[in-house]
């Protein structure tokens, strides 16, 4: 593997068993060396067992591993129920086991700050760095009316948070309104007699006030302190607060999940929240690519949607713990309306039917669509979940030179896509189209699919065995879904905007002219290498140095092939329902969906 960073030599390890314990599904996958290279061997997927009658997440992991035993005959647990590690002769055990967890409830947060668009917005981004739900926001800017101290205390008490995050005031700036929030938080905590349920206070505001905050709380309430999320009006620094909240999530939520201690005992690597490990993977992939561009990851789970972005070496992880394909639907429908979802359907569906289907998914989260119209609805929901999570994430990014067009997605080398609705899309073209519709990437991007949902766990392995992790990623952890070329510019529908030539390494070539509005798929199967030559017209920008500039690029094959998305940015859907449905059917057809 070549990369910007050299990796230390390490003793080579063989088999790798990975598990991910999600809110709905628990997955396990076995990777092993065959002829010196890692290959995917088998996987198992079962409903998560955090609830009755099991109430132990380790049981679900055993059940998923049991499915691998059924396929391979390999035994993983000894008679005492302990994981056999390292691998023994005779197909027993594994060399390394790593797991990620997202099954626990999110951290409940009350956020208080001074100005909604400044410190409070930064506080929200800090909270979104881990599995958390901001239940109440108290701002001092009067936008929601001026709250009395009693009302502030009441709102905090009624929210019953795990943590009260107090931000506000630039360093050396406002003091009195910030300290008033601290006093209100202290009073609210005084109303909670049970010390076990009393929230912590995280202070990430005006750093000059730390001593006064500690003095106000007088040791009665656990205080954690992080860097000011808004040290100046123009500067944001959310990482300290994010790290504190993430640590609280791990100790208070993930660590208390029944059975998590057992799983922890099997792994030499500390268990990690799935979102953190997913972010680590995205960050890691950035180091392997073009530093002037970004790497993006989206993971759409049953209860959470995660967007991780790496630009200029900086990772930005955004977890929407209120957005999932199963949980949080009712609130999502209330906030955004069912029409937002219905607009992505290739056939008509009454709103009430759609609402019923979506709400029933929350009641039976492990169920899967068995008929096409329900599949289209689930995929339409996925598009809106990703778009919604992106709206939260994007304002916190610092993409630098990768942001070539304002209001569009920055240039991304790679987009990692994960989560059941994407990984289990019956046809790879459907997964690719969901991502293109939801993220609207520009320039040249490789879509990479986390087929078995275990790439985050592999990211966790990278902590202790980086070389093995990279080899395993190449050997089955991630698969190329498609290479996408998206020209950006203005033209009339049907006008030629790009000339594309693919020269295959094994010989032969294909040349096409792409018209504005088209979605073209050119053959480039997995394992095939090729040289891509792009000649944009009408000053269209394909991400090769500016408007009108073309060039050559080496590309690898994927499950879908090479997609040229000339539908325009931002993507516009037709307003007329029947015409729009026809348009969507055509796009599905184009990508083989």
């Amino acid at each position, binding site marked *: 593997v070549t990369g910007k960073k050299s990796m230390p030599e390490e003793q080579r390890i063989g088999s790798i068993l990975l598990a991910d314990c999600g*809110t709905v599904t628990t997955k396990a996958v076995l990777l092993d060396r065959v002829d010196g290279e890692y290959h995917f061997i088998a996987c198992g997927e*079962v*409903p998560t*067992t*955090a*609830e*009755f*009658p*099991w109430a132990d997440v380790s049981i679900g992991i055993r*059940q998923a591993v*049991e*499915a691998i035993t*059924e396929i391979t005959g390999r035994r993983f647990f000894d008679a005492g129920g302990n994981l056999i590690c390292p691998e023994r002769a005779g197909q027993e055990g594994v060399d390394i086991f790593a797991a990620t967890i997202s099954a*626990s*409830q999110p951290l409940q947060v009350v956020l208080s700050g001074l100005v909604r668009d400044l410190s409070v917005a930064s506080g929200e981004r800090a909270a979104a760095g881990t599995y958390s739900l901001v239940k109440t926001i108290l701002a001092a800017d009067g936008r929601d009316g001026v709250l009395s*101290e*009693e009302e502030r*205390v*009441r709102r905090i*008490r009624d929210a019953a948070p795990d943590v009260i995050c107090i931000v506000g005031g630039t360093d050396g700036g406002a003091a009195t309104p910030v300290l008033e929030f601290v*006093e209100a938080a*202290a*009073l609210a905590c*005084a*109303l909670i007699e*049970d010390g076990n349920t009393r929230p912590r206070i995280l202070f990430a505001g005006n750093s000059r006030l730390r001593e006064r905050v500690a003095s*106000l709380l*007088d040791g009665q309430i656990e205080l954690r302190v992080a860097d000011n999320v808004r040290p100046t009006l123009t500067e944001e620094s959310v990482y300290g607060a994010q790290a504190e909240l993430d640590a609280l999530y791990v100790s208070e939520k993930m660590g208390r999940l029944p059975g998590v201690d057992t799983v922890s005992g099997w792994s030499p690597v500390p268990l990690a929240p799935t979102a953190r490990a997913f972010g680590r993977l995205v960050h890691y992939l950035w180091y392997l690519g073009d530093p002037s561009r970004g790497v993006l990851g989206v993971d759409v789970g049953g*209860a959470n949607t995660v967007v991780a972005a790496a630009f200029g070496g900086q990772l930005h992880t955004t977890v929407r713990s209120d957005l999932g394909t199963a*949980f949080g639907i*009712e609130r999502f429908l209330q906030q955004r309306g069912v029409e937002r979802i219905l607009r992505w359907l290739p056939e008509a569906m009454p709103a*009430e*039917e759609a*609402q*019923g*289907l979506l*709400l*029933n998914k*929350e*009641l*039976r*989260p*492990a*169920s*899967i*669509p*068995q*008929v*096409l119209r*329900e*599949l289209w609805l689930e995929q339409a929901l996925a598009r809106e979940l990703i778009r919604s999570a992106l709206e939260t994430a994007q304002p916190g990014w610092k993409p630098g030179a990768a942001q070539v067009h304002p209001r569009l997605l920055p240039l991304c080398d790679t987009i990692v896509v994960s989560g059941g609705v994407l990984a*289990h899309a*019956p*046809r790879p073209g459907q997964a690719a189209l969901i991502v293109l519709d939801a993220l609207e990437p520009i320039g040249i991007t490789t879509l990479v699919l986390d087929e078995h949902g275990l790439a985050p766990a592999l990211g966790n392995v990278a902590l202790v065995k980086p070389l093995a992790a990279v080899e395993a990623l190449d050997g089955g952890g991630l698969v190329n879904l498609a290479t996408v070329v998206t020209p950006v510019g203005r033209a009339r529908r049907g006008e030629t905007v790009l000339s594309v030539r693919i020269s295959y390494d094994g010989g032969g070539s294909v040349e096409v002219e792409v018209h504005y509005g088209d979605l073209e798929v050119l053959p480039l199967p997995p394992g095939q290498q090729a040289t891509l030559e792009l000649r944009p017209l009408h000053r269209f920008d394909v991400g090769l140095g500016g408007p009108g500039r073309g060039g050559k690029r080496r590309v690898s094959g994927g499950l879908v092939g090479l997609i040229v998305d000339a539908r325009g940015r931002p993507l516009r859907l037709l307003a007329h329902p029947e015409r729009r449905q026809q348009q969507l059917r055509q796009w599905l057809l184009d990508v083989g969906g």
Partner: protein
Amino acid sequence: MYYPSQSQATPLTVVRRERVLPVPGQVLVEIGDRVDPQQIVAEAALPGEFRIVPVARLLSVSPRRAARMMRVKPGDAVEAGQVIAMRRGLSRLAVRSPIAGRVTASGAGRVLIEADSPTLQLPANLYGEVAAVIEGLGAVIVSRGAVVQGVWGNGAEGFGVLRCLVKSPDEPLLAKMVDASCHGAVLVGGTGLEEGVFERAVEMDVRGIVLGGLPAALLARARQTRCAIVATEGIGALPMATPLFRILSTNDGREAAVNGSMRLRAGVVRPEVIIPLPAEATSTSSTTEIGAPLAVGMRVRIVRAPHLGATGTVAALPPRARSIETGARVRGAEVDIGLEAPVFVPLANLEVLY
């Protein structure tokens, strides 16, 4: 092996149910006590009203001086109108408590007074015997009877005589059906209900409504309704599964406890109906072991279209994945639902009835 989700639908079983307070309190029963549905098994003080009295501001002194003028300290009980701080001297001034309660905190020139809390009383909602006491939280009650679990509930609880108002599980519940004979009863419907049913239910002091599917448009209304509501199949125009309807309709006229409590994560709680039966049942009529892997012969319910709501038995468990209409290849089971041939259903879309 596949371990599907499970749902209880049994005409006779031993029922063990935890009755637990949402906040720590006091348990009022002991092991071996016989309880009836109305009997309070535990009670707790709920968070009450409070007032923050800005003593320093009212006395026009600094917080430090105000501290010296306080007449109460945290933990003290106070009466409404009681003097809690006093400034002596020529301009003598007193600050009185606006409410009766307890001083919870004081400092920074203010006093936090918490009013006497309202008490939450937790009834047994079952006939039975206390099998265990959960210290400070509640009790485990053992009873015997029929159990029907649902998937959606409005959070309320109720106990009354079961009144089956429809003839078949696909018949909707209409407002005109809720007459004087429904007073204090638990109503059983089929698929959906008219909005007018809620008003009639209030008028007739109905204690519970059990039906197959609840229309999405009526969710908010159902949540506001005082009586317990349980949907056995989900949201939408969904008929009640036949075995569940049979259990409920054959027990028409018997008393039933309806619990609409529902939690989807972090300790899943399913809404349910329990019909206490006089039979001396010592074991369950179900042969399915709780938490057992899916096996041939098990009674299952299909939870997604095209056979949503159908129940039957597992006829075979093909070892290989098969294609379904969406194009996905999935592991599944062949389920006999009374059609000419068994139908293939993805494992994820099955729920075992036990």
